[in-house]
């Protein structure tokens, strides 16, 4: 049933429809509304014997999730930003042990400087931790993708991270048809673990592996992730049938076929991008867009097919790899290696900087007119940067950048040095 609902509430209810058995959680903005709602659902007895465990940190949240999952319980948690960093060691253990935990990552920037707003720095920092990473564009996709995530995780015995833009989606009210427990039951069978800690049939999980087999275990983990490239489209189709609406899979194209300039991005910014593409196409500019729905494993072949024929690709990234620039664009370059296509990196929306329709249109027009540099920062305040650079050149003890720049733009919170 369609309803007007906050994204976090929609995700909480979609997760509840999947009947998790253990939810260890620690609050952190902008994820908190999700686990708060789930704790209320558990408390109300709607999930039977499901255990909601209030833990003391994200490290504990993921550690409890590992333990719970290893005993055969369907396990869910959520985090963001520094919370994800704090659980980093446990993330590798969850994937290395092949535990099908599902986690929502409400994407948020990483400090310092401290910032609670949205970008993709957190997802990107853990892109190689062995978890599958799915990105969603809307709250409807967020709700549906969690259902897919549990099935995918449990079939492959691998953890899955559903990445949704913090605040932009988690705190947005829009219409969502939340998958009901009955709908989910037709798609998601009860969890049948591939490995389980059971006192009646004792085994150990987590052996030390030396040089004789470590590479083989890791190779197998890679192989398993690559299987997701076949499984995700198949499951997306099946879920689409069960829910009566089309599901995104690996990549999704919007007017990209035959377009000279194609912009590639992840997550909720696709909505604004589509509006920009529509407006520019009406004015005769040959542009299209591609949404990367699955980032890990990286859909090389599908992306290559989607970008076939494009003269230039503009990769819009909400994260910055200091010292090199784009992260997504490095992956995109591998996908189209050998093609005569220019790849432009555009760093945008860091720390919650709004990505506006006007800026996107200008960006795409620049690309179309071959005015776009290989690497740019969307709406960067060059003047502000220059003033701070001058200060650092003028005086050795010129003070902290963040405070200096805040004072320059007149933000009161900066305070005196």
């Amino acid at each position: 049933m369609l309803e007007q609902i906050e994204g976090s509430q929609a995700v909480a209810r979609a997760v509840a429809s999947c009947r998790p058995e253990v939810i260890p959680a620690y609050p952190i903005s902008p994820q908190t509304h999700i686990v708060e709602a789930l704790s209320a659902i558990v408390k109300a007895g709607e999930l039977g014997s499901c255990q909601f465990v209030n833990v003391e940190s994200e490290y504990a949240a993921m550690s409890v999730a590992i333990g719970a999952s290893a005993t055969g319980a369907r396990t869910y948690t959520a985090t963001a930003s520094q919370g994800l960093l704090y659980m980093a060691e446990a993330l590798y253990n969850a994937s290395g042990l092949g535990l099908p935990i599902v986690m929502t990552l409400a994407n948020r920037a990483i400090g310092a400087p401290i910032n609670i707003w949205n970008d993709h720095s957190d997802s990107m920092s853990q892109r190689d931790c062995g978890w599958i990473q799915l990105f969603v564009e809307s709250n409807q996709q967020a709700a549906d993708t969690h259902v897919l995530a549990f099935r995918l995780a449990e079939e492959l015995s691998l953890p899955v991270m559903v990445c949704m833009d913090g605040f932009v989606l988690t705190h947005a009210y829009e219409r969502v048809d939340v998958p009901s427990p009955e709908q989910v039951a037709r798609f998601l069978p009860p969890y049948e673990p591939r490995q389980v800690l059971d006192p009646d049939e004792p085994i150990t999980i987590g052996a030390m592996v030396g040089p004789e087999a470590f590479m083989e275990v890791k190779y197998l983990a890679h192989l398993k992730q690559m299987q997701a490239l076949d499984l995700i489209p198949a499951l997306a189709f099946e879920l689409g049938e069960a829910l009566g609406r089309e599901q995104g899979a690996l990549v999704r194209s919007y007017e990209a076929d035959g377009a000279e300039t194609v912009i590639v991005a992840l997550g909720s910014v696709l909505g604004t991008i589509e509006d920009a593409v529509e407006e520019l196409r009406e004015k005769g500019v040959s542009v299209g867009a591609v949404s990367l729905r699955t980032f890990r494993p990286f859909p090389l072949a599908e992306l290559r097919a989607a970008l076939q024929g494009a003269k230039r690709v503009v990769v819009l990234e909400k994260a910055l790899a200091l010292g090199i620039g784009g992260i997504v664009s490095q992956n995109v370059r591998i996908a189209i290696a050998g093609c005569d296509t220019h790849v432009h990196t555009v760093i945008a929306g860091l720390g919650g900087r709004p990505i506006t329709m006007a800026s996107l249109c200008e960006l795409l027009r620049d690309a179309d007119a071959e005015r776009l540099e290989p690497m740019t920062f969307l709406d960067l305040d060059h003047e502000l940067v220059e003033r701070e650079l001058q200060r650092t050149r003028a005086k050795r003890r010129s003070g902290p950048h963040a405070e200096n720049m805040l004072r320059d733009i007149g933000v009161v919170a900066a305070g005196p040095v």
Partner: protein
Amino acid sequence: MFQIRIHGRGGQGVVTAAELLSLAAFADGKHAQAFPSFGSERTGAPVTSFCRVDDREIRTREPVVAPDALVVQDATLLHHVDVFAGLRPEGYVLINSARPFAELGLEEWARAFRAERLRCVPASDIAREHPGARPNAALLGGLAALTGVVTLDSLIGAIEQRFGGRGRAGPNAQAARVCFERVSPPPLQAPSGARRTFANGGPARARARARGTPSNA
């Protein structure tokens, strides 16, 4: 698409107001999107929220930069935050104030806009007359009357949906209704131009309000 931006301070229900508006628009069969100015809102700090209403799917996620309507829940923000940034020339403004526009130091600014679309309404006073009510709900009633972006029935329904379980629906719905009546129907535009309507209508309506009579009586 009709875009609304709401300004207020942390604790005044700015975010809730946008959410209520989106619930009402949804009940009217429209597509709606509501979201806050993302951040660590603190009690008393300036807060902004946004709502979009359209007949078709809303894809954009950018903040509302060119609003069709502005709601200012706290008039102390008027000369502190650029609340009017990007307002469309045909835009609506609804300010929570017992004083008319002219007395808020906005007369000069108001000349660029359509006077009958700029209104002040004493939403805080109205809320106080209905214990348990908040000015945000009252203002939404005024916004519904001023712009027609949502129907009063859907707005009352949204208030009941949101606050029904907490026993606060009644007074809030009543405050919204009172505010709706004070603001509607939009006053007729004086033939000699916007400014005159503004200059004559504003204080007159304010006096009517002070007497406790309906503003359009």
